[in-house]
């Protein structure tokens, strides 16, 4: 089985992928090997002979210097070994669950405000009226910056997202302009907390220290811009995908409205069957053999999160059920590079979904939707939804 995963019409959720998964745990692609089953994805995510697979992406497009290449090289995601562990140790405490728990009332108020603000009763364009402002304003809340500036965060993050596409080289001037704009934004956040420190995320990450070691000014800026970029688009898309999944499962939506305590389980179940990060990449550090497959040094592996999460070997019932016990999904990656911001994403989406279920009864498609390709990082571009309003 062979997949052309660079083809925009290729879908990780297609019948072709399901069939390949029945036949074998992997398939060949034009970018290396696609991994399709639960157990193999679980093992390869944290395999010691693999590194995270995106470090050389700019270089593959001939970009080896300049602000974008420098920023990319400084991502914690693109570091390995002790260099990675040092950054992770310094950054982790700012993302602690306790600190995020304190923001829950703000997430709830924000979700309610956005639903109250829908332009029309009984319908909305879910992405621009909820998912985008919610995701961007959560980041503004984290950074202690005025929430009304959210369109700037959303716009610049989307522009930087072009860097994930195959037209990276042509888009580079726009990407670097957006990067410059976000650096300005995070510099303002840091300046504010320098003069007015609080028990908040920015203050914590600025003061992050382990023994005598601290983040340098450059590492701090690069990490905060990565946080905006990494946190905004994924959350926005995942909320849109959640809405899509619940549109297909109205009984589950009604249940969530009645039982808001199922919010966290709903997030996990949505990310299992409809993750925005459709694959996690890894790169072989040396030649090795895994389950009978010879993998040469430098081979890229794409671990398909949805195919693995819905693998009947791991989830035999094949249902979408927010009350069922499920094995952990791969929507946040795993191993040393496990998503740094997962407590934030889990918390803000766990608050948003039950509130939406309560306020938007009987949701149904409200017109034609537009979608990103079902590969890479996916999600709706526009998702009109009609519903029965409720308090």
């Amino acid at each position, binding site marked *: 089985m062979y997949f052309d995963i660079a083809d925009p019409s290729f879908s990780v959720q297609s019948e072709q992928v399901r069939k390949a998964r029945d036949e074998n745990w992997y398939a060949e692609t034009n970018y290396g090997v696609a991994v399709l089953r639960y157990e193999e994805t679980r093992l390869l995510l944290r395999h010691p002979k693999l590194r995270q697979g995106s470090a050389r992406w700019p270089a593959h497009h001939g970009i080896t210097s300049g602000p974008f290449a420098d920023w990319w090289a400084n991502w914690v995601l693109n570091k390995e070994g002790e260099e990675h562990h040092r950054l*992770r*140790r310094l950054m*982790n405490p700012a993302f602690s669950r306790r600190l995020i728990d304190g923001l829950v009332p703000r997430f709830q108020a924000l979700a309610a405000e956005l639903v109250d603000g829908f332009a029309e009763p009984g319908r909305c364009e879910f992405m621009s009226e909820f998912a985008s402002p919610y995701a961007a304003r959560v980041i503004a809340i984290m950074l202690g910056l005025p929430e009304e500036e959210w369109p700037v965060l959303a716009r610049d993050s989307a522009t930087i997202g072009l860097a994930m596409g195959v037209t990276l080289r042509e888009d580079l001037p726009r990407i670097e302009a957006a990067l410059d704009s976000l650096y300005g934004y995070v510099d303002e956040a840091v300046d504010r907390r320098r003069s007015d420190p609080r028990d908040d995320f920015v203050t914590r990450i600025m003061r992050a220290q382990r023994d005598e070691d601290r983040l340098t000014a450059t590492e701090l800026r690069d990490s905060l811009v990565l946080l905006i970029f990494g946190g905004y688009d994924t959350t926005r898309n995942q909320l849109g995908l959640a809405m899509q999944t619940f549109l297909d499962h109205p009984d589950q939506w009604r249940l969530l409205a009645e039982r808001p305590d199922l919010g966290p389980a709903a997030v996990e179940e949505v990310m299992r069957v409809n993750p925005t990060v459709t694959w996690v990449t890894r790169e072989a550090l040396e030649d090795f053999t895994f389950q009978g497959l010879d993998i040469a040094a430098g081979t890229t592996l794409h671990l398909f999160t949805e195919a693995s999460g819905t693998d009947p070997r791991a989830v035999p019932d094949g249902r979408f059920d927010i009350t069922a016990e499920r094995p952990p999904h791969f929507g946040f990656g795993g191993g040393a590079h496990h998503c740094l911001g997962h407590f934030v994403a889990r918390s803000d989406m766990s608050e948003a979904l039950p509130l939406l279920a309560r306020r938007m009864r009987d949701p149904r498609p409200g017109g034609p939707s537009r979608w990103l390709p079902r590969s890479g990082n996916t999600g709706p571009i526009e998702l009109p939804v009609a519903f029965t309003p409720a308090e």
Partner: protein
Amino acid sequence: MKVTVDLDKCQDHGQCAIAAPEVFRINDEGRLEFDDAPAEELRDAVEEAADVCPVQAILIED
């Protein structure tokens, strides 16, 4: 200090081994190994490891 890990929950992500390498490590098979009675001076690092665990599987007693 007594450390326990809920091995039913543990997914061997190894974030604890990054936070507190003196106490937790991922072995060559990719599985977690840990010291269940670490020295008191490692408390901050162990608390950090418990905090950062993606599945919140680490418990510190006394």
